[in-house]
């Protein structure tokens, strides 16, 4: 019985991690209707920035995390202003080709600068190991992931539904022409949203290095996971990808524990079943545009 809870705990932590990594993509893909396959590159950037700060410059881990967010967001703004905004009105195929090209460039660039070996972030001792909670093994690092990601999800949901910025963003997405007629600076809203999504990816990258590992192939290796989360969750809200991440995280971990022979296929099976049942994802609406 306690094993069941340990598995559940690990699954939730893994799911939360998937969510932080993928929710930026849910925002660009779902809210801005832009296919950004280079999303993983921003995650990788966050991971490497955190690793360099902690390992080489001796920063404390918790100070490096926000910086991973900020730097990834800054790179996001830069690219959005110079490159991405020209593609908002282009076809999805153009967007896919452009962003996948960007992904390959990021892989080559990181390989050149940082080398191809896998690197690890030196964690503070307080985050290492497990402690025992009523017989359930609770990993300290995984617990931290759950706490950080839980708070983040709550904040995101509030920003989108309760703040002025949230309503501006939703208006800009639903009808950019009318929104700009009402005095909303649509390009600015989009730039900010895009940067925020990249920042989240950066933070996710920094958090995931310990569990998923960090090497120059990160954006390609995990692209499929980001896409599954967004596909299963649907892209009209934050709740959808959040529940999808949890479902997939728990499903993946439990599948690998209970039926290791089937392990890697559980996550795909879940996806296929959900998409047959609800083709637009758990919380999807029929395509708006």
């Amino acid at each position: 019985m306690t094993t069941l809870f340990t598995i559940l705990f690990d699954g939730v932590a893994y799911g939360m991690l998937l969510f932080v990594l993928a929710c930026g993509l849910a925002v660009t893909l779902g809210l801005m209707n832009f296919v950004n396959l280079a999303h993983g590159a921003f995650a990788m950037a966050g991971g490497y920035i955190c690793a360099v700060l902690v390992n080489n410059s001796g920063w404390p881990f918790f100070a490096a995390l926000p910086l991973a967010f900020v730097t990834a967001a800054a790179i996001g703004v830069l690219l959005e202003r110079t490159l991405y905004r020209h593609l908002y009105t282009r076809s999805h195929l153009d967007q896919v080709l452009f962003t996948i090209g960007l992904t390959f460039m990021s892989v080559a660039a990181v390989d050149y600068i940082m080398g191809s070996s896998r690197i690890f972030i030196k964690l503070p001792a307080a985050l290492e190991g497990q402690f025992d909670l009523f017989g359930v093994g609770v990993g300290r690092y995984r617990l931290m992931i759950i706490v950080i990601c839980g708070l983040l999800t709550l904040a995101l949901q509030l920003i989108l539904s309760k703040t002025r910025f949230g309503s501006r963003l939703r208006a800009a997405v639903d009808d950019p022409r009318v929104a700009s007629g009402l005095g909303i600076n649509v390009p600015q809203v989009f730039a900010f949203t895009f940067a925020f999504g990249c920042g989240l990816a950066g933070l996710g990258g920094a958090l995931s290095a310990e569990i998923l590992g960090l090497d120059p192939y990160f954006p390609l290796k995990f692209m499929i996971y980001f896409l599954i989360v967004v596909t299963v969750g649907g892209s009209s809200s934050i709740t959808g990808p959040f529940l999808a991440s949890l479902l997939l995280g728990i499903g993946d971990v439990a599948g690998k524990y209970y039926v290791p022979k089937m392990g890697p296929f559980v996550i795909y099976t879940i996806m296929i079943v959900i998409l047959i049942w609800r083709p637009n994802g758990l919380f999807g609406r029929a395509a708006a545009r």
Partner: protein
Amino acid sequence: MSIRSHILLAAGAAAAILALTPAYAQETVKIGLILPMTGGQASTGKQIDNAVKLYMQQNGDTVAGKKIEVILKDDAAVPDNTKRLAQELIVNDKVNFIAGFGVTPAALAAAPLATQGKVPEIVMAAGTSIITERSPYIVRTSFTLAQSCTIIGDWAAKNGIKKVATLTSDYAPGNDALNFFKQNFTAGGGEIVEEVKVPLQNPDFAPFLQRMKDSKPDAVFVFVPAGQGGNFMKQYAERGLDKAGIKVIGPGDVMDDDLLNGMGDAALGTVTAHLYSAAHPSAANKEFVAAYKKAFNQRPGFMAVGGYDGIRLIYEALKKTGGKTDGDALIAAMKGMKWESPRGPISIDPETRDIVQNIYIRKVEKVDGELYNVEFATFEAVKDSGKTKK
């Protein structure tokens, strides 16, 4: 002089240069070095390239009156690339050796070309047993998985490890490692209590490790591709398998010298069987490690040693043939060759053209603040036991 005579003179000079070129070409021995210099296997390529450069710095680039020229090509560990590059090297560049080969499929892809062109293929990294059987022109200076996995199986059974759970990556080398280990470990009276094959692209070991923990073995046998070893060890410690008294054993790939320090103290106490450790206590190795560190600011790993011995094999074979580059003569010269490598005494098995070497049992310990695989037992002159043709 008329314009006509100018042209004649120029043509004459050109003809003279052309006539000289083949004579010059004969004085050069070309080695086509095909390595993964980019992609997931790039660290293998870099180590071997470094080692070849180091050997040539130390021993000069002339052997038996011939100049050695290395042409480096990057195949990114994709066998299609390897095949194309090997063909170009043999047909256009007229190389006398092809060498390198980071992964088994790459070494196999080049094998038919080596046979057709009668060009010796020196395998410096790839580790599946069958490779040397695919062409009479293949010689290997790296290792085979069977060498280290059978030894660790024997050692575990004789050293108080009764129950073992295995965790191996689900691809050909992983399955090889598992089978060779299992065969010797169970023959020695050991029992496999849990057998898990993890997907090659596995992000998170948590559920598999939990399964390992729950099956309560004496030790976990692990083989995952280089690079994932660090993830595995970190999560192994996070889950408290070390505190539960479960040891980690395996072939030494997981504990390669260039990854070891990145793993942190989680790796302490891991027992592996392998051909090389940067901490091997011989004069030849101390010199090699010092020179390598000085030149590349890094520790050499077992891949570097495979490359270092590979280029040495080429040098020695050329010395024996007096600089003759006939493929059959070179292969004949290599068979049975013996020397003292940084890893210890090695030789080329005259029957299989595969390497015969000592396999060491090592334990990860802290030496001068750095992690090293410290050798404590030696199995001498181990041949590859995985050949299908006996």
